[in-house]
């Protein structure tokens, strides 16, 4: 176990070391990191970018920005490993951590300096989930605070509220004070969302009020989510410019994939007793993806760095698929594959 951890850290150092040393700012890094003014307004906080905006002007050189991202990524890997060790055992925790460390879909959030906000939100959400599942029930009082930190890091942190029941279901523990944590978190997030309308939560450069028809947006996001699901299993066509189009062919494809999504949800529901990790993983991914169908950011459909918070759920699904394949091998040939 200890050697496995050392191996993962060594791999990440080898992978990101040259990047930290020599990579420059790219894409929206110039606008976000270098063009950021240090003043954080109440509006920034309410729109879910106050904490990350405050951090842009503190750490604004490429080398330090990339170093911070890799450090946050290591923290996320450790926290996710810890959480799933607690929820499903040491082996599962170890595999979830390995998937997060090795999966190419995590690269955009880490290697892109502006991905810092996603990483900060992920750290806070995972800490909130760890507090919720702690042996000492009073730790649950920190949950609303940590979810608020997640939200002010990036508006995507709001999905932490939806992840609470997923984790509670997986732990199958007595509710008690944890219920108070859940209700408090829900009330806090509701209050935050009411400060302004959800439509104002837009990406940098999007422009408030830039809208498209709801059906077009749902089609685009549906295809974007399917693209990310496929990349989760086969990460071969990663790009900063996802080829998502608004046309009639996309609508037909969306219809077909929508039916496939329903079938996937049905499978997840049926598997809830035998493979609860699969059900929880699908629920986790669904909770992360769902708000993206409501909040319109037409110039940038759901992309890889926004998928970062879904990755622990993806890891759960991959672990479960491996377990299912293993069980099938045992049933057909009486032999198991290498089970992680």
């Amino acid at each position: 176990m200890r050697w496995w951890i050392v191996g993962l850290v060594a791999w990440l150092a080898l992978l990101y070391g040259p990047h930290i040393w020599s990579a420059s700012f790219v894409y929206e890094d110039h606008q976000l990191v270098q063009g950021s003014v240090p003043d954080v307004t109440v509006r920034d906080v309410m729109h879910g970018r106050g904490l990350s905006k405050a951090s842009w002007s503190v750490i604004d050189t490429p080398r330090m920005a990339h170093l911070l991202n890799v450090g946050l990524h290591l923290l996320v890997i450790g926290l996710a490993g810890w959480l799933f060790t607690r929820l499903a055992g040491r082996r599962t925790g170890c595999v979830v951590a390995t998937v997060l460390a090795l999966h190419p879909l995590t690269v955009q959030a880490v290697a892109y300096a502006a991905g810092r906000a996603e990483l900060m939100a992920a750290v806070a959400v995972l800490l909130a989930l760890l507090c919720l599942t702690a042996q000492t029930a009073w730790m649950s009082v920190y949950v609303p605070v940590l979810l608020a930190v997640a939200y002010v890091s990036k508006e995507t942190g709001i999905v932490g509220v939806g992840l609470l029941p997923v984790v509670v279901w997986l732990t199958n523990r007595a509710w008690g004070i944890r219920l108070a944590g859940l209700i408090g978190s829900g009330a806090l997030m509701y209050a935050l969302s009411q400060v302004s309308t959800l439509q104002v939560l837009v990406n940098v450069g999007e422009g408030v009020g830039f809208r498209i028809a709801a059906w077009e947006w749902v089609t685009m996001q549906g295809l974007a989510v399917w693209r990310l699901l496929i990349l989760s299993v086969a990460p071969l066509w990663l790009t900063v410019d996802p080829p998502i189009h608004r046309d009639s062919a996309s609508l037909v494809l969306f219809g077909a994939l929508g039916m496939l999504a329903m079938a996937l949800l049905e499978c997840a529901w049926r598997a809830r007793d035998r493979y609860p990790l699969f059900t929880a993983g699908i629920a986790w991914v669904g909770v992360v993806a769902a708000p993206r169908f409501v909040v319109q950011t037409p110039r940038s459909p759901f992309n890889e760095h926004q998928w970062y918070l879904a990755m622990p759920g993806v890891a759960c699904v991959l672990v479960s698929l491996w377990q299912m394949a293993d069980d099938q091998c045992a049933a057909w040939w009486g032999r198991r594959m290498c089970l992680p």
Partner: protein
Amino acid sequence: MRRWLLIGILVVVGLLEWRAVRAWRSEPALWGHAYVVAPRSPRAVSNYVKALIAAGRDAEADAILNRREP
């Protein structure tokens, strides 16, 4: 056999991750990668050409633009 399967998966995934990180090292590398993945994307082409010109690689930018002509 089982161990080699796992090692094989780890090596392939590691190589894909290495390639993905390399794409984020600079503006021309990022948009060059986007251009390879989606050569018909107007955004990828224009940003790649802009990045090449900004990096002083005008000849490569010309080649990209000429390649797109029918």
